[in-house]
């Protein structure tokens, strides 16, 4: 049974037309394909070159951090009035990127979206590495990172407690919980696949390492039962968590009385922005990986199309946030609010503001068109534009609100220094280097979940063309051989 391109105009407009996994696969072929990427395929030249460049950037990060620790945060461009420079901009940007991974792995699991299966592992890995990059910034921004453990409530000889009433403290709890839960969620998802890798590997040491990580998983029905219970519960817990994390990040701003920050739109607007930028990053990364690893059977146009739609929807919420900010700025009648909005639009940082509008409000409107959503190179370009736009958004929010303080005598400008750029570019290197290692060493698609998808597809040859088409193409009414609900 081969997949048929839609022929008439009626079929063309059934949204679920493209299957989430191309037909013709069985348990063997999906296992071989995905585990083979790690176990049998030679390390490609693209991998070596990519990893090398990322590793160079990691060294830039190390050098920048070393200089920062030696000299202090004065090597950055921050000063009064702009005390929150690149560090906070990049922290918010990276944390936001992480949100797509949790959304894909947890929320789409609860919503029973089959298409998440091909991309959840990769997106979760992206979340972990993004949160790790994000965590570096507040750590370095405190100035004396070696005392960062003071942020945690532990019995200490100073007899002091952290300030639990501060949103910055809430952030410590939110981000560290987010990292921990993302890590265990990702690892639990990996366990059955690590067992596959263990059984598939030929060389003894490789078998041994995967075997250790698989914890002796043997696929017992009892184990699967508890495993699925744990997985769904984790998804249920991660769903409110992911919404809370960027909410708490936005409270860092919103609980202050700085014009432009002190706003109730911030939590929903930040969460939408996080998912917007996260999906953009997932697209930026999966499109090249899909191409070099030839994963078109697993990451189909349907996946890209759906991700583009999520981007469009969350992008519109973000645009609504921009409108509300501007409207309230003028409607409030508050002199400082009005001035802040005018200064943001027409002041010294106006180019940043208008570029952000172009990137986040104008360009994503192209995604209304199906032909553009399915044009892979163009979609990739749009995703990069959105990534840049979301970075600019945080830059504009942080810098424009701070640089004109209430008294003109305390106005100033913020200019990032080479060390600001060094740390930022370095974390991009760290993020990419981690991803390169991940796709080289671990199965980047959840093999057991793909097998489950295959098991729910009609077997080739067992069903006639028509039956096969009906069952395979329309999600929700696939036959389930085991009985019971999916």
């Amino acid at each position, binding site marked *: 049974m081969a997949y048929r391109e839609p022929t008439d105009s009626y079929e063309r407009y059934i949204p679920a037309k493209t299957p989430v996994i191309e037909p013709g696969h*069985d*348990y*063997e072929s999906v*296992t071989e394909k995905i585990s083979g990427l790690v176990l049998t395929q030679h390390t490609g030249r693209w991998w070596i070159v990519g990893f090398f460049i990322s590793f160079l950037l990691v060294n830039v990060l190390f050098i920048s951090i070393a200089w920062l620790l030696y000299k202090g945060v004065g090597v950055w461009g921050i000063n009064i009035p702009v005390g929150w420079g690149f560090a906070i901009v990049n922290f918010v940007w990276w944390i936001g990127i992480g949100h797509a991974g949790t959304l894909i792995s947890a929320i789409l699991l609860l919503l029973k979206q089959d298409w998440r299966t091909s991309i959840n592992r990769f997106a979760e890995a992206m979340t972990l590495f993004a949160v790790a990059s994000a965590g570096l910034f507040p750590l370095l921004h405190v100035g004396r990172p070696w005392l960062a453990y003071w942020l945690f*409530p532990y019995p200490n000889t100073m*007899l*002091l*407690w952290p300030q*639990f*009433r501060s*949103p910055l403290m*809430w952030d410590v*709890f*939110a981000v560290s*919980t987010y990292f921990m*839960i993302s890590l*265990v969620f990702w690892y*639990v998802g990996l366990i*059955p696949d690590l*067992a*596959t890798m*263990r*059984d598939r590997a030929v060389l003894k040491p490789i078998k041994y390492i995967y*075997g*250790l990580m698989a*914890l*002796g*998983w*043997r*696929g*017992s*029905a*009892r*184990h*699967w*039962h*508890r*495993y*699925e*219970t*744990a997985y769904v*519960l*984790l998804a249920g*817990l*991660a769903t*409110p*968590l992911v919404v*809370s994390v960027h909410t*708490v990040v936005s*409270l860092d701003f919103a609980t202050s009385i700085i014009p432009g920050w002190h706003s109730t739109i911030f939590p929903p607007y930040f969460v939408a922005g996080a998912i917007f930028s996260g999906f953009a990053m997932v697209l930026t990364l999966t499109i090249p990986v899909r191409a070099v690893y030839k994963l078109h059977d697993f990451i189909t146009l349907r996946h890209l199309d759906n991700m583009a739609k999520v981007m469009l929807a969350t992008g519109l919420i973000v645009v609504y946030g921009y409108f509300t900010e501007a409207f309230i700025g003028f409607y409030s009648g508050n002199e400082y609010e009005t001035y802040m909005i005018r200064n943001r639009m027409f002041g010294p940082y106006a180019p940043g503001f208008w570029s952000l509008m172009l990137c986040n409000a104008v360009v994503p409107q192209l995604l209304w068109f199906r032909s553009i959503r399915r044009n892979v190179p163009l979609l990739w370009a749009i995703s990069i534009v959105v990534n840049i736009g979301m970075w600019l958004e945080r830059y504009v929010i942080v810098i424009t609100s701070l640089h004109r303080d209430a008294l003109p005598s305390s106005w100033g400008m913020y200019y990032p220094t080479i060390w600001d750029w060094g740390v930022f570019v370095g974390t991009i290197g760290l993020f990419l280097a981690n991803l390169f290692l991940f796709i080289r060493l671990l199965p980047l698609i959840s093999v*057991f*979940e793909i*097998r*489950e998808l295959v*098991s729910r597809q009609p077997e080739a040859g067992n069903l006639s063309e028509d039956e096969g088409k009906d069952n395979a193409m329309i999600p929700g009414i696939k036959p389930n*051989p*085991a*009985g*019971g609900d*999916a």
Partner: protein
Amino acid sequence: MSTTHEIHPAGVYGMLAEFTDPKDLVEAARLTRHEGFTRIDAYSPFPIHGLADAIGFHTTKLPLIVLAGGLIGGLGGFFMQYYATTISYPLNIAGRPYNSWPMYIVITFEMTILFAGLSAVLGMLALNGLPQPHHPVFNAPNFELASRTHFFLSIEARDERFDMDRTASFLAGLPNVRSVQTVPMGNVRDAMEA
């Protein structure tokens, strides 16, 4: 390996029937339980709904463990803040209440999620008896397919109804069974190889 009837049942873990289709495994599990076997297990490369029911495994305590973890995390998180701000180090700031509970909500929430999530993972692993690097079923020569393509049903020798010959012929009579093999305990296999 598949006809090791000479081995005394004391050195035998049980018997393993192999299938290539999940439907056959569920049906086989159902029939085996119907036959009266109780110490059975099924192995599959992906979760199969209805399979746990078919081998007679219906409920797990895991949700209770997660609930307990969440409650401990939430209460612990709240009272940690309460203790810090009202008992251990009260600070009078313009007469505001020490127990400013709305400010504690975020950390209480995060601690609830953290503890519940970790309980889910650690509880799942503990109830499953993992990590367990070795298990006798791994002695079956093609059991490595259980994590890839094939489906297995095991009856343990500890089962009261277990009998080398009759159990073997029962398993061999299951629909669409691909092979039936006796699974030795680890040390027996080592002894045989030596």
